[in-house]
């Protein structure tokens, strides 16, 4: 990132190669539409280019990048007209759930979608993107304790929403 801030084009391409796929997957989970995730991935990296002076020297790049992606998804959600339907998620949205049967996968997707954003984002970042709570706190500009509390409540609610799956097993 330091090289890129100095104007090294190659350094940006390395960052894009390394992070564009995980960011695309994250955005796909957040917005549920392949086309929107494509656009938001480009918007995320465009933001990295345009706002590179806002990156604090010595900070970790990954939480900063996920913060940008989260802001882009939020902005897109904020601007969406209420009558505009959310496109159904593409099949690869739940890559980590590829092992489970489609019924369960759909139930998990539905349950995640029913969580409030304040709980869904920490869970998606923690469970699917593998970020630590310290990194998630950086992404969301909150304290680590606050993020853990939100995730805990979110997981509890998920358990409630997914309870019927356990009963059916």
């Amino acid at each position, binding site marked *: 990132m330091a090289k890129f801030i100095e104007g090294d084009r190659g350094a940006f391409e390395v960052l894009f190669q390394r992070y*564009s796929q995980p960011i695309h*997957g994250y955005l796909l989970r957040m917005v549920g539409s392949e086309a929107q995730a494509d656009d938001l991935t480009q918007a995320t990296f465009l*933001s990295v280019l345009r706002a590179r002076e*806002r990156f604090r020297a010595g900070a970790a790049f990954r939480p900063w990048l996920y913060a*940008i992606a989260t802001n882009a998804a939020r902005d897109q959600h904020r601007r969406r007209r209420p009558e505009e339907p959310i496109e159904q998620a593409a099949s690869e949205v739940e890559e980590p759930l590829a092992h489970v049967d489609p019924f369960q996968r759909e139930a998990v997707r539905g349950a995640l979608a029913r969580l409030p954003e304040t709980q869904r984002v920490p869970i998606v970042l923690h469970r699917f993107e593998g970020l630590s709570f310290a990194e998630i706190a950086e992404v969301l*500009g909150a304290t680590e304790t606050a993020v853990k509390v939100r995730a805990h409540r979110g997981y509890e609610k998920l*358990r409630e929403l*997914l309870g019927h799956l356990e009963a059916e097993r």
Partner: protein
Amino acid sequence: MTDHERVMGALGQGELPADLAAHATSCAHCRAAVAAYRALAPPSGTPAPPAGRRPSISASLERELAMTAGRPAPSLWRGPVLLGLLQAVVAMAVVVALGRGELVRNQAAPAALWAVGLALGACALGGTLAAVAPGYRRLRTALFALAAGTAVVLVGTGSGLPGRRAFAMDGAVCTSVEVACAVLPLVAALWLQRRFAFDPMRAALASTAAAATGVFALHLHCPIGTASHLYTFHVIPWLLLGAAGLWIRSRLQSRSYAP
């Protein structure tokens, strides 16, 4: 740190340590959280899922990349420092132009005059810088508190001198001066705010700071010191300009989503 937080922190780091596993078994909340976490996890031994499609650099990204290649990142502070200078120039130009040789027409006690003046200057310039700076969330909160406190002191320490014309007539003049002073700094502040993701607190602080330019000019120029005049025509327009700036920013497209 509570046991709930420790359980959360340990999820995804392998098996829970014995003490946390015992807690997770006995605590209904943690039991549910751990079960949900595991419900989302692939069973052990599951091969990694196939990688999704790898995005490529779009034409617009390529164009932007070509424009920025070889150029170091611009200074973060150039914009807000220039805006701070603009605020100072606008406020002093208005005070000089309207004062006709008499820079300070406010009849309040010198201590109050200085204290409120300095606080307004801090709100205007500090707010402009803090609204843009990455981090500094507590400083932004403190500046909001300073602005609120300044408004209270401004109204409470007025000279009590009444206006010569009708209440509304004097008020219309003051409000017009305040709004006119705020226009340029507000437009510049909104333009700067578009450089990063919409953040209601930053946007409100930037607008409040820009609007403080007019309040500062009035504080020096306006001789009327009744609480009703100061509250209705100095403080309320300040609040409304801050709210208007926040509303406008919320409708502007960001150039970047960086925090």
